[in-house]
């Protein structure tokens, strides 16, 4: 095996990939190979249909051996996709894997050009740059770090719960942090789930109690992550545990304190019931809350506001669980992987004022209706509206805050199905006439279309048209006291006025309000809509661009329960594969100090956000802690003496790239530029 110590004259093997028609359809790959073959230090230049395939990689390994190559350049797709693949091939051939350079002539050239001639010139310029660069590459060793086996899951909805159970069952220690006082997320609020019409609480609560009881899961409810530092396999996370003013260990959830409270009835809008009922200052979100522990709201509790309450709650509690002196706690944990399953928020229907939400009492959002029809909801499942009526007609408006240029462009995916479900439930509870106003019916899941069919037989009316407004202006006597839905029935080409007693707005799914703050804390990105960004929409839907951090569920994009659970399982699997590998390789692109060149000027010390640079007072020189360095290169550009260098991104290498891009020795291919 040829051993290259970086001082031998470079012997470069060049390979350009057709990628089927993806590259070869626009770029003249044969010409590129010919061009490369004539460049200095290039020993062999080949073109091949699919370089990333086994035979493609074998070309490389064979050539290294037989032609005694010591550098490899591959011109194909994005290094973000296959740089690792080809580095491995290079290593298999016996070379240090960092004697490899990749040229992106697909994403950056063939896929963005119509002009074959210009694309080929561009490809050649990029190839020339890479050939110059790779000639000054050095051999490098990858750093390996151990992976801490514990996992942090942020968000205790169905996705977080499922991921936690999967990981815990695999023997990993999981900390599940949930901001609300109970886990369960939005799913706990639903009445029945489509298409099976399973009771949401019935299928969710066993999982919730499994989480509570699992020896490998530490459940921190009513808590929030406040700080994250570290890197893949080695994260340090600070979690703020908010005070319930009730001891979690002592409270058994008997709820007698709530009955005993000096407030005879609730005065504060109940968050879980979407404000449709009222709760007392001491409360539990819902009876099956997990953990089954009450909490006290300091904003409304008399003891907090005046210090002079009779404290009948404390009297009643025979476990002595109430503690008004409880304080917020900050805890710190170390984990190797993090899964974000923070969920979504519903669209604020007030943003569409002509649907009358907040103006007319009998206009509801879908999530409010879930509580209304729920047997443990504010009206015990009776369909009684805010003004006391029982509706005889109901209109359900689809796509509120979805598929709309004025609010959100995307389709929220779940609304058609849940609108169908609500139509069925409302009809069942009240025998009212139900109208669904839709644009398209999206029933794409398993058994979803069949569910829709069944509904059509239940005499539910479907009107295809985007509702223009909900108004209380009546034009005819029979419309008095009703809400009029004005819509163009596009199937028959008529503008209709449909008088109803109750309007249900199928509100869309949006990222949570603080999604941007959360993603900055975890150092991941968001897409343009504001949902967390996956590494690849098709092939890596639960990974992020930050190693060790995964996303699952509605925080990645609108989706229903089956898809959320599937993603949660996928994220857990990704975390498992990271942890069980035991260690991970870090890209060796760290900065280092060449001591003899360092003048001790201290310009670099304050530059590093990771405090990886310190000063050796004895030597009066800068020192870089490789374990802390993340490889951004800012200090490299700062150092006035050029004493700080960066592996893989040496000045010499970048200057070579610049030179290669701009020198044009082939007049035929460069269109006459001298």
């Amino acid at each position, binding site marked *: 095996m040829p051993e290259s110590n970086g001082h031998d004259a470079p012997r470069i093997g060049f390979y350009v990939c057709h990628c089927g028609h993806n590259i070869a359809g626009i770029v003249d790959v044969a010409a590129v190979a010919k061009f490369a073959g004539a460049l200095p230090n290039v020993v062999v230049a080949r073109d091949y249909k699919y370089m990333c395939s086994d035979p493609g990689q074998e070309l490389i390994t064979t050539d290294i051996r037989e032609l005694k190559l010591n550098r490899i350049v591959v011109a194909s797709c994005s290094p973000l996709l296959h740089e690792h693949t080809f580095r491995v091939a290079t290593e298999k051939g016996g070379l240090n894997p960092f004697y490899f350079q990749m040229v992106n002539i697909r994403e950056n050239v063939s896929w963005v050009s119509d002009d074959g001639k210009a694309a080929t010139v561009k490809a050649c310029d990029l190839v020339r740059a890479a050939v110059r660069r790779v000639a000054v590459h050095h051999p490098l060793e990858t750093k390996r770090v151990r992976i801490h086996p514990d996992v942090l899951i942020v968000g205790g909805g169905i996705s977080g719960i499922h991921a936690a159970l999967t990981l815990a069952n695999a023997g990993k220690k999981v900390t599940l942090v949930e901001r609300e006082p109970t886990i369960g997320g939005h799913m706990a609020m639903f009445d029945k789930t489509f298409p099976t019409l399973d009771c949401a609480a019935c299928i969710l609560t066993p999982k919730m109690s499994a989480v509570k009881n699992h020896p490998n899961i530490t459940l921190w409810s009513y808590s929030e992550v406040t700080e994250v530092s570290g890197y893949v396999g080695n994260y340090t996370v600070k979690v703020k545990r908010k005070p319930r003013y009730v001891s979690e260990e002592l409270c058994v959830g008997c709820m007698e304190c709530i009955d005993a409270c000096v407030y005879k009835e609730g005065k504060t809008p109940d968050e879980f019931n979407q404000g449709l009922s009222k709760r007392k200052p001491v409360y539990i979100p819902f009876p099956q809350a997990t953990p089954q522990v009450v909490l006290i709201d300091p904003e409304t509790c008399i003891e907090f506001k005046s210090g002079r309450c009779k404290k009948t709650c404390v009297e009643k509690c025979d476990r002595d669980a109430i503690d008004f002196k409880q304080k917020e706690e900050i805890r710190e944990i170390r984990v190797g992987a993090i899964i974000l399953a923070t969920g979504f928020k519903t669209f604020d229907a007030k943003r569409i004022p002509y649907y009358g939400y907040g103006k007319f009492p009998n206009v509801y959002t879908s999530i409010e209706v879930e509580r209304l029809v729920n047997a443990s909801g504010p009206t015990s499942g009776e369909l009684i509206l805010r003004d006391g009526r029982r509706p005889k007609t109901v209109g359900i408006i689809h796509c509120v805050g979805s598929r709309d240029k004025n609010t959100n462009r995307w389709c929220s995916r779940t609304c058609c199905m849940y609108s169908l479900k609500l139509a069925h439930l409302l009809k069942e509870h009240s025998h009212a006439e139900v109208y669904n106003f839709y644009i398209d019916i999206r029933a794409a899941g398993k058994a979803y279309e069949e569910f829709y069919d069944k509904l059509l037989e239940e005499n539910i009316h479907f009107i295809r048209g985007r509702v223009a407004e909900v108004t209380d202006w009546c034009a005819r006597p029979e419309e008095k006291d009703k809400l009029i839905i004005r819509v163009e029935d596009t199937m028959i080409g008529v503008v209709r006025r449909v008088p109803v007693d109750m309007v249900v707005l199928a509100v869309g799914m949006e990222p949570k309000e603080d999604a941007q703050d959360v993603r900055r804390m975890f150092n991941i*990105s968001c897409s343009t809509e504001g949902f967390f960004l996956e590494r690849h929409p098709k092939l890596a839907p639960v990974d992020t661009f930050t190693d060790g951090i995964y996303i699952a569920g509605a925080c990645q994009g609108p989706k229903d329960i089956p898809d959320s659970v599937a993603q949660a399982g996928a994220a857990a699997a990704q975390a498992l594969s990271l942890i069980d590998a035991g260690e991970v390789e870090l890209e060796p692109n760290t900065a280092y100090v060449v001591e003899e060149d360092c003048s001790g000027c201290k310009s670099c010390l304050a530059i590093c956000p990771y405090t990886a640079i310190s000063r050796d007072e004895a030597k009066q020189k800068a020192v870089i802690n490789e374990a802390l360095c993340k490889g951004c*290169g800012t200090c490299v550009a700062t150092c006035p003496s050029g004493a700080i260098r960066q592996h893989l991104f040496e000045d010499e290498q*970048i200057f070579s790239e610049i030179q290669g891009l*701009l020198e044009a020795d082939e007049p035929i291919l460069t269109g*006459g530029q001298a």
Partner: protein
Amino acid sequence: MTTTAEQKNGWEPRIVAFFCNWCTYTAADLAGVSRLRHAPNARIIRVMCSGRLDPQFVLDAFARGADGVLVGGCHPGDCHYMEGNYKALRRVRLLERMLDAMGIHRDRFRLEWISAAEGEKVKTTINDMVARVRALGPLGLPGRFADWDREMEELAHAVAAHTEDVHA
């Protein structure tokens, strides 16, 4: 000035682009995946962070014949390495003043914040920059340096030729 001649020869602007790995380079890939066709004049050099950008890279690129230099990084507040893009911004501002003083038009050097999801912005930025640089014409520094070098050499020869008048 060789401008007219070069333009007649079908001169195309050459832009060197320094894109940061996490945001702008990813966005450029996204532009490719989305098949957002744009002007082929930009040649991308990938760095890990816009903070790695040494002003010498920019000067070297111009000196070697680039007609424009584009720098792409994450939006302020979003740098994968926390603050690298702020350092890049500081350097760019100083460099802009230097380039002004050297007579290089502002449109030839540009810093753009492009996030990983903004494939469309990569396309519009490159198209816009190429159009502006095309309107300005080639910068042609290598040619100009060669001209100046030649002038200096001739002057040196001329001085050397006057050995008799050394004391005059």
